[in-house]
């Protein structure tokens, strides 16, 4: 296990390095500059500002400077927000994304798996048709449709929940955004679980377990589920990374101060260092979550050897 982890980390480092390199040069190749404002800076002042951030040097030197900073854990200062470092900004905004993304993916995994198992056990009966019908709807209704519709019903018409805002993470403010984020995931997860479960329930070792006289609930929980959720595990890694780095649409509609919104604003304003910081966080999350997914996969499926 340790050797596997070590080898995977060795492969992850060059990937991360490539991601940083590609993102850095793509970012710089795009026209525009962080210092172009409504108020035009005089060339002298602009030169001073550029020098202050080391942007007067040739691009490859800046790249080397940036890389050596990142290796030491220094992501540099924000080019737009005075006196704030990239880490400050990430620090201020990650909580919202973490809570929203984490809670919704966990909820979605629990609800989706339960629904998928129920549908598989009642295959081609009403419960199955009903859950899969709902799941199809969940896949087909994008978040930017569900979000305004739910706001219209539960906030504007019924007045049960606030329309938008973070409000220090109050539960009432979280319900709608989490629901919106979780619904499509529930749909996908329940479909994956159902498909896996149906396939596994037909296999020989389940027949063996049944013929031994094991109770059905034990067969489902101990024998079938383990193998049935294998495809789900590989899906959850990237899905969780996407949710944890913030869902732009949900943050925009509910006016939440999360990472996703910050990312778009920074990219549009060419706040190079902040964008790079977020790209690195995203890539790290993908790498780490995929690694975790592979380890869970191996733990669930003894045929997979980690080597």
């Amino acid at each position, binding site marked *: 296990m340790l050797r596997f982890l070590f080898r995977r980390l060795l492969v992850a480092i060059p990937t991360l390095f490539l991601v940083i390199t590609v993102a850095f040069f793509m970012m710089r190749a795009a026209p525009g500059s962080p210092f172009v404002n409504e108020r035009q800076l005089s060339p002298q002042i602009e030169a001073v500002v550029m020098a202050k951030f080391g942007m007067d040097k040739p691009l490859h030197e800046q790249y080397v400077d940036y890389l050596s900073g990142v290796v030491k854990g220094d992501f540099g200062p924000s080019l737009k927000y005075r006196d704030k470092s990239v880490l400050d900004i990430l620090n201020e905004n990650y909580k919202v994304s973490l809570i929203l993304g984490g809670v919704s993916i966990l909820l979605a995994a629990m609800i989706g798996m339960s629904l998928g198992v129920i549908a598989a056990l009642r295959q081609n009966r009403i419960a199955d048709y009903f859950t899969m019908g709902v799941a199809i709807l969940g896949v087909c209704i994008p978040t930017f449709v569900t979000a305004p519709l739910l706001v219209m019903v539960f906030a504007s018409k019924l007045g049960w929940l606030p329309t938008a805002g973070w409000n220090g993470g109050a539960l009432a403010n979280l319900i709608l955004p989490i629901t919106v984020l979780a619904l499509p995931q529930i749909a996908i997860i329940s479909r994956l679980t159902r498909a896996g479960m149906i396939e596994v329930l037909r296999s020989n070792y389940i027949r063996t377990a049944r013929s031994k006289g094991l109770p059905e609930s034990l067969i489902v929980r101990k024998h079938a589920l383990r193998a049935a959720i294998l495809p789900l595990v590989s899906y959850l890694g990237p899905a969780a990374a996407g949710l944890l780095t913030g869902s732009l649409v949900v943050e925009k509609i509910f006016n939440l101060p999360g990472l996703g919104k910050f990312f778009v604003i920074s990219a549009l304003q060419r706040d190079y260092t902040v964008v790079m910081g977020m790209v690195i966080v*995203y890539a790290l999350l993908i790498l780490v979550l995929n690694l975790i997914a592979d380890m869970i996969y191996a733990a669930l499926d003894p045929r997979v050897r980690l080597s």
Partner: protein
Amino acid sequence: MIPGSPQRAELLQKAVKGRSLWDDARRRLLSNKAAVAGMIVLALMVLVAVIGPFLVPFHYDTVTKPDVWAAPGVGGHLMGADSLGRDLLARLIAGLGVSLAIGLVATSVSLVIGVLWGAIAGYVGGRVDEVMMRIVDTLYSLPFIFFVILLMVTFGRNIFLIFLAIGAVEWLTMSRIVRGQTLSLKQKEFVEAARAAGLSSSQIILKHIVPNLLGPVVVYVTLTIPAIIIAESFLSFLGLGVQPPMASLGTLISAGAQDMEIAPWLLIFPSLTMIITLMAFNFIGDGLRDALDPKDR
């Protein structure tokens, strides 16, 4: 049975009429009610998008002051009118056309790049494969929105570049699927036969590998088109996609969400259109997968 007897000839003729994989798949697909319904709905949608603009008495961009916020049915506006008095039905038809066109063009772009990339990586193998797939891994680890914003600011907000931008990002999964298939195809005898016949690698890839990839690729395409329609709407929702006065399903839903307190129909009709379109694609995709992949049944 006597050789040369009429019965034998008859039997032979029957035997010659074998069912190909595609015949089987077509029969399975056509017996899948949801998939057939999806195809009919989709055909209707395309028809509406193409001839609809000639049937609706309004232009999607004609501003009429007295019709501002007209409710459905008022002033001849079947689906009502928006904040500028523009007919929603006309805008919806125009937007549906734009969304479908974006889905089609962007999918074609991602199809060409993804299939060629995956087939070359899988067929050539070795170091080339490693480098090509490492590039795919790297691009996977960059957020989608990052590419899109950079392409936007580099080339301006041009609708054709939106097609290209989305297609250029969506090919990654396609290339992985194709590479996996190619790896197994290349062990087959017919590829060896082609190589023995002296065909070059590029001829083998284009004439022998790619046609045999069709099954999984077709299934994935029917799932990519709705994904791209969602991606475009998502960009339009963030103000990065189709620019006014042009409409797409995304811009209409986005505008509708802003005005839903005053005019809920502006949100409801575009949302319904989007959901129905996506469902049609999903049913066709599921049906195709069942039809082309019998082991899953």
